[in-house]
């Protein structure tokens, strides 16, 4: 059974076609984590249920609730693994979808 996440949560998934990491906005999907919707407790479960409709229509390969930190109303993944997914590989700033050149500053 998945560990219950405390605090704000957002929803992460992979596009079916290319596996690109996307975040649920409440109405669709965005590669930018700050565009993501977030919620807590039962509201987060409701958000997940809505996101799962995209699984049913084959937009994404799977959805998961992940812990989020919220700054000025903008959510961002809390766990290192999900930060990695949001930013792309730390070792190839020239590649990846969500390329970032500021990995070294982390």
């Amino acid at each position, binding site marked *: 059974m998945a560990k219950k996440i405390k605090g704000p949560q957002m929803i992460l998934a*992979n596009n*079916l*076609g*290319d*596996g*690109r*990491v996307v975040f649920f906005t409440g109405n669709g999907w965005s590669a930018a984590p700050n565009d993501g919707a977030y919620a807590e407790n039962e509201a987060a479960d409701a958000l997940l249920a809505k996101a799962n409709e995209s*699984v049913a*229509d*084959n937009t994404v*390969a*799977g959805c998961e609730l992940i812990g989020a930190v919220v700054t000025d109303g903008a959510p961002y993944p809390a766990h*290192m*693994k999900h930060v*990695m*997914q949001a930013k*792309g*590989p*730390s*070792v*190839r700033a020239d*590649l*990846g*979808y*969500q390329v970032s050149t500021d*990995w070294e500053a982390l």
Partner: protein
Amino acid sequence: MYAYDDYDHALVKSRVDEFRDQVERRVKGELTEEEFRPLRLMNGLYLQLHAYMLRVAVPYGTVSADQMRRLAHIARRYDKGYGHFTTRQNIQYNWPKLSETPDILEELAEVEMHAIQTSGNCIRNVTTDQFAGATADEVADPRPYAELLRQWSSFHPEFSFLPRKFKFAITAAGTDRAAVKWHDIGLILKTNDAGAIGFEVLVGGGMGRTPVIGKTVREFLPEADFLSYMEAILRVYNEHGRRDNKYKARIKILVEATGTEEFTRQVEEEWAKIKHIPIDVPAEEIARITAFFSPPPLPVLADEDEGVNTLAAKNFIFASWITNNTNPHKVPGHVNVTISLKPHGGIAGDATAEQMDLVAALADEYSHSELRISHEQNLILPHVAKKDLPAIWTDLDEAGLGTANVGLLTDMIVCPGLDYCALANAALSPLRRRSPSALTI
């Protein structure tokens, strides 16, 4: 090199056609992700952190120049211009699109390659000494036996859903370059007092979160009993290996829990039951497969070369490269060249399409169109004449492949880790990338 027969071609082609149909059904929504997942994994296709990842099998790490060029083409056409060579002597691509993976598999099939059994709870790519057949310190070339294992284990109906993945390594050399003691089954090719070929059989080695050194269950298994004994080990594991906890499902856990003596007794008991079944292949078939691995005809050359000595005297890096990146060959005047894929500040095991093309060209010119991939994630040009070393190193160095660090700290093995892998807990590549180049020499 082993060459496909009609059966092999038909088998791989039918698998490509089958997977193309499965992908189309997934994209149309006729298969859910839950239904599709085991099907894609059987074809080496993972869904990782950022994208799909396709792992291509390179049986026992031997690859032709033409195959390497095809791998480069796939990197360029379907990925982001590079590939990652792995500790199972395979290559994996980190950015393929789902809809294009059947096309990739079709292109691989054209050059007698595939991605079958590079994932899933089955017998994975058999690995061996990267210098197999080209080194003086071995009793025989282990690759024919690795090929025999490949044929026996491919689509083996009983061993397609094992408790967990299963890895073989085989060596025939006095120096274990295949890490056989850290494999589910490790095989050491040896001869007995009568000069007959056989194997020391080790079981239950492994790394990861529970590192264990394999235990010897047979000091000498005659060649004639090779496959039936492997079958017996796998049958015991398949029956008694744990399936309730994936972290305790590898055979190393079973052997540790059962005890080596009792496990061996169970294997021997099982073997006695199945020995009469014609699993083992006749000596003629072993000879037929062995013929594919005949070494190229090499002339005996002088061990010292003036051109090499001259360049080494004035270029310290080249001299270090000769020391670190070449290994003795069984034919005098020749060496095996290890091309480091661990450049300073680079990503261990990665090679660009252009680098792969260059290495293929060098193989055509200097190593009889043959290449090897080592479990240390480097590339090897076997059978190289010493006099050709200055030209080879100069070309490699210009392409960023001349690093003289094989066997040194900066040559460390590095998995993709948290940068790509959904199972990883640590990002290892940045750590190696920051290793000071001063550690090289």
